[in-house]
């Protein structure tokens, strides 16, 4: 029954996208109206100049943190890379830089809106990164905007790789602001708290390999696999600048 409902409703998705596009100017107006309000009406209210300055500083800090994460992962990968000529990383992937301009409209919607869309080449399924690592994936595109589902969304599942052991698993979102659940890691794999988790980029993956996703914060033994909590490297409440990777799964 679920698939029938989905098929029927998905045929109306263009209508929804069109309506949302038509409402974009209204959202812009609302953002402008509330940006000058002294009391914060959420993460998108408040003083604009101060937010801009904070955003720039956070971007620099995120970039530094990402470098650190990538370095740890690179140590393990170095030996592999020597023998793998076909290794692909983010270098060479076209990207479109933009900003997060708005948050969710409804209570059960955890997507964020960015100021880049179809006219800039953004497509549904494109990965979105910040200086700190993977933010999420594009789930809706308008002419000059796109909606991004964060990694921590309950519907998100991303192929992940532990940086030290190289073990592959699936990182599932629980809720915005919560740690990811990393599944399918064998019981005999040694996993340390603080270990970096990156995208696996295995065949069919929606993401290129090697993008930092976060760090392990908790490890517990399950019945078949370990139960691992991963704190996302991107803080959604603070992220402003993003890059959309114009990359499609091979």
């Amino acid at each position, binding site marked *: 029954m679920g698939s029938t409902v989905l098929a029927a409703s998905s045929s109306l998705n263009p209508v929804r996208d069109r309506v949302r596009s038509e409402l974009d100017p209204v959202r812009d107006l609302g*953002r402008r109206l509330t940006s000058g309000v002294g009391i914060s009406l*959420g993460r998108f209210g408040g003083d604009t100049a101060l937010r801009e300055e904070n955003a720039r500083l956070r971007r620099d800090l995120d970039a530094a943190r990402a470098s650190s994460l990538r370095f740890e992962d690179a140590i393990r990968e170095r030996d592999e890379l020597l023998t793998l000529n076909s290794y692909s990383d983010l270098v060479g992937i076209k990207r479109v830089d933009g900003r997060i301009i708005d948050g969710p409209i*409804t209570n*059960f919607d955890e997507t964020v809106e960015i100021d880049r869309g179809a006219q800039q080449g953004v497509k549904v399924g494109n990965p979105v990164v910040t200086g700190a690592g993977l933010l999420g994936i594009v789930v809706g595109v308008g002419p000059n905007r796109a909606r991004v589902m964060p990694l921590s969304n309950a519907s998100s599942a991303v192929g992940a790789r532990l940086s030290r052991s190289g073990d592959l698993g699936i990182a599932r979102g629980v809720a915005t602001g*919560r740690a990811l659940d990393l599944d399918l890691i064998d019981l005999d794999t040694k996993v340390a708290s603080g270990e970096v988790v990156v995208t696996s980029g295995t065949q069919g993956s929606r993401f290129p390999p090697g993008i930092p996703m976060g760090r392990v914060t908790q490890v517990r033994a399950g019945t078949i696999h370990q139960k691992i909590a991963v704190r996302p490297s991107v803080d959604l409440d603070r992220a402003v600048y993003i890059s959309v990777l114009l990359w499609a799964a091979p």
Partner: protein
Amino acid sequence: MRSFGAERAVPLARIVLLCVTVLVLHVLLFSRFSLFAVRPEPFLLLTIVGALQLGPSGGAMLGCVAGFSADLLSASPLGLWLLVCGVIGLGVGTLALQLATERRRAALIASVVGCTVLGLLVYPALAFAVTEQRYPPPLRYLTIIVFAVLWNLLLMPVFYAASHRLLSAKRVAR
């Protein structure tokens, strides 16, 4: 004992106009009201206060249009909010025929609280059944329900007055 709301015939165009107005207001303003990252649920609120005045068939119609408007903004498959609001509109409209006019305020508050909670319980359950979308964590879910109810109670007088004005039409002879 007189009923709270009698069955009323209201042109569909007027209902659509009201829902489009709320849609624009939500995008413009209500979606920016955020307490603990919880926003009002204006389409549920409109359905409840409108159904109290329109009765079952008008309430169901209003609920379907309001629910579809909510669907246009949500990330889940189209039709889930339509179903939730349609059923709530029908239920509240039916209930309204049985309610005493003297307790109008209490009935209004009870309806807004009860049906907002009901809507916020049923909608994620439907989304889970159709898309296997996972529930928010319990604390977050509870926060959404509590603060959405508070928002709706706060906006209730405005919505009631506006819907009363816009939906007022000749009562259907019973």
